[in-house]
């Protein structure tokens, strides 16, 4: 039995096979290969090697180290003894609402117990096998360093693989108590880091398949343009060039080598059609949103109390309009995908966040069933949500279908940026009021943006990274136009106790796709809300820290995190420094508060220091939590200060890092991260550090200059205002 077939047949912890009805697949596999694999995640070879199948993509968030840590902990082996392998697209790994998916800061939260259980089950079976050999009760045995030990007797795991395989698979194996943790909650080195410093790490772009050719893609100036005519005679005459052809959304240049394809691409003349977003202009979208003060046709997400009445009757009223642009993910590794179409079987090698989505999308293009598409997930050079989409895999499959040989398609940086799936342009009309005692009377939010869920469902149909029942529910709501767009609106309540609240949404419908971008809705909603809370605090003449504190429930995690950032808020500061604060309850689970110190140097916003306090429950690897906070702050600062995607007459104006700048080291602030010591279950950390940075900087700039910047990116707004 091939390993893939064997693994494909294993479900979660392989519960339910009958002992006594012939040898189980686990026993058969152990007898044939010597490898003990009680479930789809953990296996132990005859030589004692422990392997964990990582069914999530490593995007830099540290999931490889997470899996290795959990398995090493429960199996009582050193972490260096655990080999990690990135799992193929097999049914056993469809564990995220029926999909194999990495996203939404869920890997630690969702994997913490199942992966430990997978390892603990293996351990229990190994102990059982050894105890039987010795004729002693399993409870008298212990494990250490890859051995089962009883008194002076010891048996290596590798010697027990066949006997352990015939033990019953425990459905609820004993997990190690927290007091016995050697690895979880401790600092540890990242297990995949060595390959990332010696050049051996294999990303999607590094995949090499025998007989492989390369494809470079020309995309039109307007998003989604199709070629009307292609003049390729000069290109085809160049050495190594195999084919040039138009396909939906682009022109493929196929050559033996990438440099041959790039050179050929320069001499190809293409006439493009007007594309799907001809005429789209972000300035016009802004003007329309500013003009849209209508009430009545918007989708209501929340109504609590009577915000209109409370605001109308209040002593002090404030209204503000916040804006944020389209954004691009701009991962360092440009989009790429390697595909081999062999008759009715398709093999894909790619850095993707959802192999399941790729399977479905590629199957449709090639005309096979999703089970006939096998996806090998590679390391990914960043993802930030972009790689949950399958658009680039679809293009690679279209090319591969025609070429016959394995094809590695790479997008240029310009394609990566102009043919992106963008974080929506967003506008928020915020109204709020203070009672005479300075407390919040009510808040009214009207968000205008592209409807993320609606568009995702339209783009993917059944290949969406959501369960079917959910998709059907959404479709039903869409059909009646009563879908409150949860993805876009998330984050507007932020745990604040406000008696009267109204949150509503008006979709902006364009043909430019909007998509999941690190922190999704809160990447904007937190900017609008936390800036507005600051405006209310200043109007109430209350310290912004204290104002927030009064709005947070006594005894809440949110309030505890805010209290922990108090020293940073009240620390002495030099003249010329503005200090700002913002916080978030992310996805109802992770709490983050940030305090920033900002200066203006010759008109340039300089963020000097960022203090972060995070409560993510138990920090499985505190240093990776710290790294994720640092990374989210820096990623968020790039967007807060400088980044925007604008369109003029349907053409994306930013094409590379000169016009879509990423923060560079000389502008990187000093970042201090404090992690709340918590015994609660772990929660996600990939996204929550991002949303507070933009409002914290805007609030600091207000403190410094008295000017309230309500539009991102802040530097541009500062320059024009």
């Amino acid at each position, binding site marked *: 039995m091939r390993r893939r077939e064997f693994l494909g047949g294993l479900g979660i912890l392989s519960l339910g096979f009958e002992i006594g009805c012939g040898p189980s697949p686990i026993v058969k596999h152990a007898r044939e290969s010597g490898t003990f694999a009680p479930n789809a995640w953990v296996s132990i070879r005859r030589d004692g090697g422990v392997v964990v199948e990582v069914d999530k993509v490593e995007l*830099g968030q540290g999931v490889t180290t997470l899996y290795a840590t959990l398995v090493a902990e429960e199996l009582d082996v050193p972490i260096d003894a655990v080999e990690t392998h990135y799992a193929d697209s097999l049914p056993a790994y469809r564990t995220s609402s029926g999909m194999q998916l990495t996203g939404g800061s869920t890997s630690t939260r969702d994997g913490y117990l199942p992966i430990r259980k997978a390892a603990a089950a293996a351990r229990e079976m190994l102990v059982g096998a050894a105890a039987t050999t010795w004729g002693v009760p399993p409870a008298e045995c212990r494990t250490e360093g890859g051995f089962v030990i009883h008194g002076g007797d010891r048996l290596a795991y590798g010697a027990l693989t066949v006997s352990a395989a015939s033990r019953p698979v425990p459905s609820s194996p004993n997990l190690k108590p927290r007091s016995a943790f050697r690895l979880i909650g401790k600092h540890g080195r990242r297990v995949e880091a060595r390959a990332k*410093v010696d050049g051996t790490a294999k990303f999607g*772009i590094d995949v090499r398949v025998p007989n492989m050719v390369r494809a470079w893609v020309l995309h039109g100036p307007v998003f989604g343009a199709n070629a009307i005519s292609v003049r390729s005679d000069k290109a085809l005459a160049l050495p190594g060039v195999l084919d040039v052809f138009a396909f939906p959304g682009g022109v493929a240049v196929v050559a033996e080598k990438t440099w041959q394809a790039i050179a050929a691409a320069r001499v190809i003349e293409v006439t493009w059609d007007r594309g799907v977003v001809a005429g789209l202009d972000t300035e016009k979208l802004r003007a329309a949103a500013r003009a849209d003060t209508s009430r009545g046709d918007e989708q209501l997400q929340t109504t609590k109390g009577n915000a209109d009445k409370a605001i109308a009757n209040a002593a002090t009223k404030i209204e503000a309009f916040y804006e944020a642009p389209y954004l691009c993910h701009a991962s360092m590794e440009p989009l790429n995908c390697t595909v081999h179409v062999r008759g009715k079987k398709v093999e894909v090698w790619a850095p993707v966040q959802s192999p399941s989505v790729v399977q479905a999308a590629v199957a449709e293009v090639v005309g096979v069933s999703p089970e006939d598409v096998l996806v090998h997930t590679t390391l990914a*050079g960043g993802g930030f949500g972009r790689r949950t989409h399958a658009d680039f895999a679809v293009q690679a499959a279209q090319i591969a279908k025609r070429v016959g040989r394995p094809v590695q398609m790479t997008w240029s940086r310009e394609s990566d940026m102009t043919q992106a799936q963008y974080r929506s342009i967003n506008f928020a009309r915020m109204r709020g009021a203070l009672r005479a005692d300075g407390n919040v009377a009510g808040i009214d939010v009207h968000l205008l943006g592209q409807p993320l869920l609606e568009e995702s469902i339209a783009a993917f149909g059944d290949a969406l990274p959501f369960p079917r029942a959910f998709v059907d529910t959404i479709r039903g709501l869409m059909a009646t136009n009563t879908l409150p767009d949860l993805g876009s609106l998330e984050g507007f309540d932020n745990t604040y106790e406000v008696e009267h609240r109204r949150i509503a949404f008006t979709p902006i419908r364009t043909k430019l796709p909007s998509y999941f971008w690190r922190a999704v809705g809160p990447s904007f909603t937190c900017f609008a809300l936390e800036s507005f809370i600051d405006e209310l605090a200043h109007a109430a003449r209350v310290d912004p820290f204290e104002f927030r504190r009064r709005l947070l429930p006594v005894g809440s995690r949110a309030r505890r995190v805010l209290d922990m950032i108090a020293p940073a808020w009240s620390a002495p500061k030099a003249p010329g420094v503005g200090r700002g604060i913002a916080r978030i309850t992310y996805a109802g689970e992770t709490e983050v508060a940030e305090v920033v110190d900002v200066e203006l140097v010759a008109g340039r916003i300089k963020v000097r220091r960022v203090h972060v306090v995070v409560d993510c429950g138990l920090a499985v690897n505190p240093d990776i939590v710290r790294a994720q906070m640092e*990374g*989210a702050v820096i990623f968020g600062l790039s967007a807060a200060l400088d980044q925007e995607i604008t369109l003029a007459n349907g053409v994306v104006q930013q094409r590379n890092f*000169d016009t879509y700048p*990423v923060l560079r*080291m000389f502008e990187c602030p000093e970042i201090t991260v404090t992690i709340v010591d918590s015994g609660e279950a772990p929660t996600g950390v990939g996204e929550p550090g991002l949303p507070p940075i933009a409002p914290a900087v805007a609030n600091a700039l207000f403190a410094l200059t008295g000017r309230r910047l309500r539009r991102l990116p802040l530097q541009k707004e500062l320059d024009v205002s």
Partner: protein
Amino acid sequence: MKLEINGVSVEAAVPAETPLLWVVREEAGLTGTKYGCGRALCGACTVLVDGEARRSCVVAAGDVAGKKVTTVEGLADNGVLSALQEAWLAENVPQCGYCQSGQLMSATALLAKKREPTDADVDAVMSANLCRCGTYPRIRAAIKRAVTALVGKP
């Protein structure tokens, strides 16, 4: 043309104007050097040419004939990592890791020029290399750590 990459002679049948990046990746088979932007804006493709940090995506292969090219694969000595590589591990620098080859090459060139760079030196040189994951604070710390390790040695 004949190139010397990491001390090994590489014969590449490519036009002289072919970017060194693709010769390194597809002719020499060294994939540690990455394509990021194609315009010397991001630094992911940084290699050393006679010890100088160069963005290989805009360096014509023909211009480096007869010069010594070093890529990330050439930093370790028989599997023994350089002080910078070790420091990178100790500080848990890499996240996605895609930019790190370029970061290490820029840092290597920096330390070759200045044994004890100031913070400003580090910021000036390393600002040529983008990192989307936000590893800059750790890169700074790792360079300091490597300097300590190198200067501490006789």
